[in-house]
């Protein structure tokens, strides 16, 4: 009896301690309100929640990677999650209208005109656009942004042949190029085109100050950022292009994808952007919906072209691999059949990309792969392929390994973190090929410049020798400089013929952008190509 009393007492003490220690909903001031909201949401089906929804003034968006820089003039390369903040706080000068086939249109630019020689772009800005601090947007701000950007890593990568910006008057200016650049308008639509205030930059003492409290002309004003947690924004009620539906926005960083899905399902968040497909395909909750679209990032195989590399000197082996990779199997296994099976970089929305059927193509052909392998010098050795661990690339590599095994190729996958990957591929000869992912912000065939040619020797080991490297370099340079679109197509057709015939590189798939959102939300869609989701367009 005494023992029972003791046990009872201990149990009471335990529960009392825990619950008083942790606090009950009553003791927590914010709790009743939150509980009410949750209860109300649970009490009614999702469809009936809609009439009450306009009362929701806060939009909570979940992202798996943390936005770090809140101004695009940072000295290191900006990350894609940063774009999520830029898109709300700043306005771009130009944008690609995917509803109109990806046509380039002015945003802060009212109109623009490219000179016949392709070296000058005249831009007229919209009048009466104001930054969040009240300063008026003028040509000075645009010039300042591009002058600074041209010296940043991002600008150096995208503002090719860039010379200067000339101010004509308060609202007119001209961009000067040293030579035409075929993808210049696409580049101007990328994340480098968000305009900062020159006066404010000087007032706060440069990037550090600007990044700490950024001002733009966008639909939301920056309020605060808590490291690793959230970025808070508040609606810009004087926004020139109309008022956003939500008064406040919180961009929350949730590293775990399951938690991100649960957050939207439970109503803790309204939208989760760019979650992996595997976390969404099994979501069967009527309270949420999801969408997807092709990303600007490509999964891509690159060979080791160092002179002493055996794959570099064996075209037949490379062709065997080219024909032996079952890309549709990758699409099914990794992307549930939702992506494409490219034979050259990009998709049909990329400018300068030859149309299907106009260039030398190839497709999965086991017999042909075996023939090429028989003609090669391959002796059964390990074909060492490096890739990024715990990514779609690793999964794709595993599918590739299986299909190449059928050909008779002994592929070994070495999956490492990105830092180690670059270390190995740049500084060693310990790899035969590598599979990695790169986004081409230019959305143009000029991406070949960034992806593989010797024109960027720093990209991989500087001593690499790409087959037909001179010809490829000449073509890439010609495509870059050619202002006539039809002629660019011809140049890139010749380029991809070289690449495919020599199996110089093998694109595997395009990544997928996704958006998971509460049922009833309008205006939410997975980003086409570059992540620029504008919460301004979201509403319930």
């Amino acid at each position, binding site marked *: 009896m005494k023992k029972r009393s003791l046990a009872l007492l201990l*149990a009471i003490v335990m529960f009392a301690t825990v619950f008083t220690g942790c606090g009950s909903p009553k003791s927590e001031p914010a709790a009743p309100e939150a509980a009410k909201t949750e209860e109300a949401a649970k009490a009614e089906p999702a469809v009936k929640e809609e009439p009450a929804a306009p009362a929701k003034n806060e939009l909570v968006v979940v992202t798996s990677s943390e936005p770090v820089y809140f101004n695009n003039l940072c000295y290191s390369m900006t990350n894609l999650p940063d774009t999520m903040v830029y898109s709300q706080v700043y306005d771009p000068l130009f944008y690609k209208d995917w509803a109109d086939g990806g046509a380039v249109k002015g945003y802060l630019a009212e109109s623009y005109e490219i000179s016949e020689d392709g070296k000058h772009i005249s831009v007229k800005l919209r009048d009466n656009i104001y930054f969040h601090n009240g300063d008026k947007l003028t040509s000075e701000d645009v010039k300042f942004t591009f002058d600074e950007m041209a010296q940043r890593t991002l600008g150096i990568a995208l503002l090719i042949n860039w010379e200067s910006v000339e101010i004509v008057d308060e609202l007119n200016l001209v961009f000067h190029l040293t030579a035409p650049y075929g993808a210049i308008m696409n580049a101007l639509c990328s994340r480098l085109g968000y305009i900062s205030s020159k006066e404010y930059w000087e007032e706060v003492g440069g990037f550090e100050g600007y990044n700490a409290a950024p001002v733009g002309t966008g639909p939301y004003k920056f309020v605060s950022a808590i490291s690793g947690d959230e970025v808070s924004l508040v609606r810009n009620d004087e926004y020139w292009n109309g008022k956003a539906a939500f008064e406040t926005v919180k961009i929350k960083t949730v*590293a775990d994808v399951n938690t991100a899905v649960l957050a939207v399902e439970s109503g803790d968040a309204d939208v989760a952007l760019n979650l992996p497909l595997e976390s969404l395909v099994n979501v069967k909750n009527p309270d949420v919906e999801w969408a997807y679209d092709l990303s600007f990032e490509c999964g891509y195989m690159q060979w080791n072209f160092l002179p002493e590399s055996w794959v570099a000197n064996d075209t037949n082996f490379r062709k065997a691999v080219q024909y032996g990779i079952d890309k549709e199997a990758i699409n099914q296994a990794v992307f549930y059949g939702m992506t494409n099976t490219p034979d050259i970089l990009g998709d049909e929305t990329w400018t300068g990309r030859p149309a299907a059927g106009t260039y030398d193509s190839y497709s999965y052909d086991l017999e042909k792969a075996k023939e090429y392998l028989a003609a090669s010098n391959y002796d059964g050795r390990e074909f060492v392929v490096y890739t990024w661990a715990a990514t779609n690339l690793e999964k794709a590599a595993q599918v590739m390994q299986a299909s190449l095994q059928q050909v008779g190729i002994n592929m070994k996958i070495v999956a490492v973190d990105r830092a180690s990957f670059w270390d190995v591929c740049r500084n060693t000869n310990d790899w035969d090929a590598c599979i990695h992912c790169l986004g081409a912000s230019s959305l143009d065939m000029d991406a070949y410049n960034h992806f593989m040619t010797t024109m960027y020797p720093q990209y991989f080991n500087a001593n690499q020798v790409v087959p037909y490297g001179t010809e490829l370099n000449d073509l890439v340079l010609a495509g870059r400089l050619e202002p006539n679109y039809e002629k660019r197509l011809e140049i890139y057709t010749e380029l991809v013929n070289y690449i495919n015939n020599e199996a110089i590189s093998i694109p595997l798939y395009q990544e997928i952008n996704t958006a998971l959102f509460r049922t009833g939300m309008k205006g939410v869609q997975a980003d086409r190509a570059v992540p620029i989701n504008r919460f301004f367009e979201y509403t319930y």
Partner: protein
Amino acid sequence: MLKYIAKRLLLIIPVVIGITLFIYLLLDLAPGDPIAIILGPDASPEQISQLTAELGLDKNVFVRYLNFMSDAIKGDLGTSWMTSKPVADEFLQRLPNTLALAFSALAMTIVFGLTFGTIAAVWQNTAIDGFTLILALLFASMPTFWFGLMLQIIFALNLGWLPAMGVGTIKHIILPATALSLGTIASQIRLTRSSILDVINMNYVRTARAKGAGGFRTVFSHVIRNALMPVVTNWGLTFATAFGGTIISETVFSIPGISSYLINAVKVRDIPVVMGTVIIVSIIVAVINLIIDIIYAVIDPRVKLGYMS
């Protein structure tokens, strides 16, 4: 006693030096180029060499370590290579979340572990004992991330009682602390049970009973206090385990703490963040263990006498 505390505090210095030097060398030996991550693949060789010099990566590893430590002693933990923000600022912003999580987990471990362990010992070889041990085994076998996910599904998604993620209110800490403390509760139950069983049949306990002390008084005044020494020792280790284990809870429950900060930094070889975090965490763990040692003295006067002598 004060002399003992001062001695223990001084001992923290070589511990921190040892840990930081080991981590620094390990990071240096690990493959991976932080410059490539910072600048991206399009960086020119000139940009790469300029940044390498700016970050001091062209210097010998020991020179870099000494430079870092001399700055750290002055209170400057440097700036994150990835975010350009001062490490100390970000650390201090995140530390309360991790401490709250670790201490909540420790509190739950102590309360549940002591209670169930005592019950199991008092009712040794009964159904209650069996049930408690099975419970402990179950707790020890469940992975934290899986249990965390289950808690989220049940309490956030299905019942809607608690938030699935984030920080801000006490409600936010309940699920992650529960998930985090599960394994340590299991070990605490088993340890408490065995410690009490060691003591419960001692002559002085029997004497106390013979002198008419009630069951409750016997257990609380004579058994638990004497059985507490190994249990309290375990609290220090439990805290270190909980502190280290916060990475899983922080990830699953999206808590902006220092564990996730550290892990992200390791992935991108952000040395100032890794080093700054390691220094402070090692000091915190060392201090907690010192506090545990002081608690010994409170529990057992013999230890206090030992310190004083």
